[in-house]
């Protein structure tokens, strides 16, 4: 197993760290967006606005 990353270790670790950060940001953005949309739908339903089908807008199962 290679344990030393050699003279260019900073380039390698920066690459992996950047990928991890961007992927994490994507995951967090999508998770926060999901909660935001569900909260908006709940608020609208609570104010008496319902879908034409009569089904709950937040019910996705």
């Amino acid at each position: 197993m290679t344990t030393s990353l050699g003279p260019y270790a900073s380039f390698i670790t920066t690459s992996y760290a950047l990928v991890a950060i961007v992927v994490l940001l994507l995951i967090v953005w999508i998770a926060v967006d999901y909660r935001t949309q569900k909260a908006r739908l709940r608020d609208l339903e609570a104010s008496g606005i319902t879908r034409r089908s009569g089904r709950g807008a937040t019910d996705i199962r």
Partner: protein
Amino acid sequence: MTLIDLANPTRFLSLTARVLPWLTAATAILLAAGLYLSALAPDDYQQGATVKIMFIHVPNAWLSMFVWGVMSIAALGTLVWRHPLADVAAKSAAPIGAAFTFLALVTGSLWGRPMWGTYWEWDARLTSVLILFLMYLGLIALWRAVDDPSRAARAAAVLTLVGAINLPIIKFSVDWWNTLHQGASVIRMGGPTLDRSFLIPLLVMAVAFSLLFVTLHLAAMRNEILRRRVRSLQMMQASRVTLSNEVGAA
């Protein structure tokens, strides 16, 4: 459930709720396996340990083009078949594709500095990928600029199909022009030229990143469907307020 059933957003949401936990688990396991195999991979005789950047650079580069390919198929779905989920699929994929393209550019740059002696060179491969990144940003801006999703969908679909011309240019740029970037070493006539000790971790990481894309894309599509429900309910709410104001005034 047949493919045609997925045209129904409610059924699509139901399917997404069932498959997302499994996809998330499979992605996490494959990513962990890919990272483990990447750590075990030997140093290259010329590049040393910097070859490890390949295991994240190449999957991101492949996905940057693959995601545009997915968006192009979705664009056909919007323009030709008017599939209700086609624009949802394309719009949800764009930010994820932009992120993969950004990562391909930055990790390539960080790999290029120690190997080529420069972070950037205006050669055909690097420039065409930069153009792809700018096209992703342009599409995202277009979707945000137009309020009506159906109008934005048609314009974005046309732009996506025009932009697809860039995909073969990116793929064959290393063959058509003299570039600093190396030629194809995995997807090529005659098979891969990479040694198995590099090829296996690379393929595992490529599958892991592809699964990551599928997982994030389905989750983003679910969000976009909910966002469109919010919009239609808000419009119903606004029309009720207008109607009650008119009745009150009369």
